[in-house]
């Protein structure tokens, strides 16, 4: 335990100082006005205390001028808070294009994580410092929430859809990971750590955890065993079903009119509820896989489809340590997605 009481948590991401700056602004303004009101109140209470039992002060009806002043000034100040908060939120909300992707599946009461290079982790996430990380998250059961106070960010993880959360750590260390949405019996035990490492250490960590197949390879195996190949082609080149090669990130015309951009959410919907948004030119012949495959398998299938971005290319076969510090776009199967 620390011998002094801290007022802000450790700052370890690019959001930390942005959120803290706004927090200090809010604290400063609200403290100033609270103290102002408090001082005036205490002054009045002492100055205008009742001195004789039956005294009647002169009535004052009010003042439109004062009402206008104390409506407009707080409103203007509130709008600065709004605009600043919205500005930072927009950055938090919009994931960058060139982020390292990690898949996260929450379940009562643990976090299961898998790197694009295949390494699996439970309740721990190892990431390199100064690199943008994008989590693609879902849950097998109830709503959870991925919260890292040192990064000043969190997001609800909602069943039935993918939620993304991104951050860029700025300081190596081990930080709390909390589930922040109440999820049942052992909610307070659904905690873990995010371990931020120097690039070299991270590469060592990756190479010390080989032997796992990457999600894309696992997805390729599922693609065969679930019989996807019979309609979508052995390598996703298409057939009775739409072509999957290079589909991720593209805009597809729909049978019902309109179009949709192919992202994780659309792929997920098309596997669990294939009739919802049919690609133009195809009939409603695909069976639903709702309840037949787990969230982990869904993530793997989607990772495989995402890896099919160039004709004939197959995903890397084993977890090779992706050089974290000097990776160039296109060097891993999950690059170039947007």
């Amino acid at each position, binding site marked *: 335990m620390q011998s002094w009481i801290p007022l802000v948590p450790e700052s370890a991401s690019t959001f930390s100082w942005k959120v803290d700056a706004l927090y200090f602004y809010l604290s400063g303004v609200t403290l100033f006005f609270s103290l102002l009101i408090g001082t005036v109140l205490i002054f009045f209470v002492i100055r205008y205390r009742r001195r004789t039992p039956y005294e009647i002060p002169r009535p*004052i009806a009010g003042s439109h001028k004062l009402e206008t002043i104390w409506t407009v000034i707080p409103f203007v100040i509130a709008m600065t808070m709004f605009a600043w908060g919205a500005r930072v939120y927009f950055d938090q909300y919009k994931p960058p294009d060139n982020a390292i992707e990690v898949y996260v599946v929450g379940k009562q009461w643990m976090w299961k994580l898998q790197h694009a290079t295949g390494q699996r982790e439970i309740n721990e996430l190892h990431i390199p410092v100064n690199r943008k990380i994008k989590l693609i998250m879902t849950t097998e059961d*109830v709503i959870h929430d991925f919260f890292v106070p040192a990064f*000043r960010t969190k997001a609800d993880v909602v069943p039935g859809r993918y939620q993304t959360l991104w951050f860029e750590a700025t300081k190596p260390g081990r930080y709390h990971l909390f589930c922040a949405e109440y999820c049942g019996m052992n909610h307070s035990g659904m905690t873990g750590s995010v371990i931020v490492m120097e690039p070299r250490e991270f590469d060592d960590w990756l190479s010390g955890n080989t032997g796992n197949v990457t999600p894309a390879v696992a997805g390729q195996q599922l693609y065969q065993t679930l019989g996807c190949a019979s309609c979508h082609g052995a390598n996703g080149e298409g057939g009775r079903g739409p072509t999957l090669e290079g589909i991720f990130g593209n805009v597809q015309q729909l049978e019902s009119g309109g179009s949709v951009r192919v992202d994780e959410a659309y792929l997920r919907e098309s596997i669990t509820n294939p009739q919802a948004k049919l690609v133009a030119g195809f009939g409603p012949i695909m069976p639903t896989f709702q309840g037949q495959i787990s969230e982990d398998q869904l993530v793997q299938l989607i990772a495989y489809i995402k890896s099919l971005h160039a004709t004939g290319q197959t995903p890397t076969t084993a977890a090779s340590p992706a050089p974290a510090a000097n990776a160039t776009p296109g060097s891993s199967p999950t690059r170039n997605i947007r």
Partner: protein
Amino acid sequence: MQPIESFEAPAPPKVNYINAQYGLKSWLLTKDHKRIALLYLVSITFFFFIGGLYALMIRLELLTPQGDFLQSTTYNKVFTQHGIIMIFFFLIPSIPATLGNFLIPMMIGAKDLAFPRINLLSWYIYMLGGVITIYALLAGGVDTGWTFYTPYSSTYSNSYVVATGLGIFINGFSSILTGLNFIVTIHTMRAPGMKWFRMPLFLWSHYATSLIMILGTPVIAITILLLAFERVAKVGIFNPALGGDPVLFQHLFWFYSHPAVYIMVLPSMGVISELIANFSRKNIFGYSFVAFSSIAIAVFGFLVWGHHLFVTPQSVYAGMIFSFLSFAVAIPSAIKVFNWTATLYKSSISYDTPMLYALGFIGLFTVGGMTGLFLASLAVDVHLSDTYFVVAHFHYIMVGGALMGYLGGLHYWWPKISGRMYPEGWGRFSALVIFVGFNLTFLPQFVAGYLGMPRRYHAYPPEFQVFNVLSTAGASILGFGMLIPAIYFVWSMRYGRHAEANPWHLPGLEWRTPSPPPTENFYETPIVTWDAYEFAPREEVEVVGKFRE
């Protein structure tokens, strides 16, 4: 205008509403709004005591970082039931059903509410909902959090969700009927001369509260019904595995439950307006601004529910609109605080217990409102949502706001309600103890929250212990402070000094009839020729600034 010592009503008669009839039946079948208010007072005090016991258990558990006092399953039920009992069975009915019920007819010069039988019915509905909820708690309890988020509540929880939901569902109708009764009464039962802008601000705030009650409560009823359908009949509404959408539940839930915060705090603001004006012998500064700010809060309060969903997959643009509107809804509350403070300028302030509560309210509500700005601010809310910062914020609003108003009002009108005076010295002492205990409990939680301590945690990392020890210490002081009024109010009913008709020397209608009042409130229908809080002749009303109202 008569001098203040002559605001006197006739000498206390032998027969009043309390001793007009005797026997249990005369109470359980009464149609007198004052007796129904007392039925409510006893019932909500009972529920407040249960909710307080749960709070005690929470604070004891959190004294140490390990989950050693309660099992996690028990702890989850305890914080859930603390929330459900305190919100649905204490705070929402607290001021409207007791003080509102007692005073609305008296303040407008009426004999009773517009629908006395419906008023009694609403108490029976409240009790039925309460009994069912108590049954659910005794049968095994509920562990979903008072927010009942799906799909945990609809599919995964193994607790008495449907029974508790049924209790809340039924209780809602009591709230709707009370709101309906108040609106009709204020529209149709005002005494001759009691114009809208002569009404005490207590009535304006209850009018605004009633609007929320009748417009918002049906939505929570529908939401609970849909939840029960999914849980019992497996109809897919919220659970994605059945084709539903869990976030839809949060939209529906908060569409009621955010305005419900204003159901709790608006009546309290009404009480504070009464206390500030009457204990400083001054008309409220900017009466019409304070009156309309209540209506503005009721209307805008319906448009901000999405600020509870900033970390859900809600669209970023929806988030921005809700953030903007949440900042906007803070303005009418700020206007009230400024006008209350301005009222005290050149006034004559007494330090009686009710005024101490009113001053405490302004302080605590200001902190609650200011910290609300942090949570309305999108990027900061992302960090703060579901942490102890939120817990501290809403306790400042609900306890610092609603409960302080309730206690202040109860002390202020206790002579009228019971015909007895409470002991003033003990009153001031306990008001002070409650204020100190409250701040010690909840101020440290703001810091713990920003440091990242999540709410609803039964065990927590050791670095948060210092804040929790402070909180638990504060809660002990707060609990002790709450026991004192409970004891002396009961004591005063038998041993308290008899109250005069107008012990505070005030011009309001409720003080122009004996304490306790006769069953028909007034011996003859009053004719109102004065404005609210008119302590001095109108010619002397001074206007500050260039514009005249």
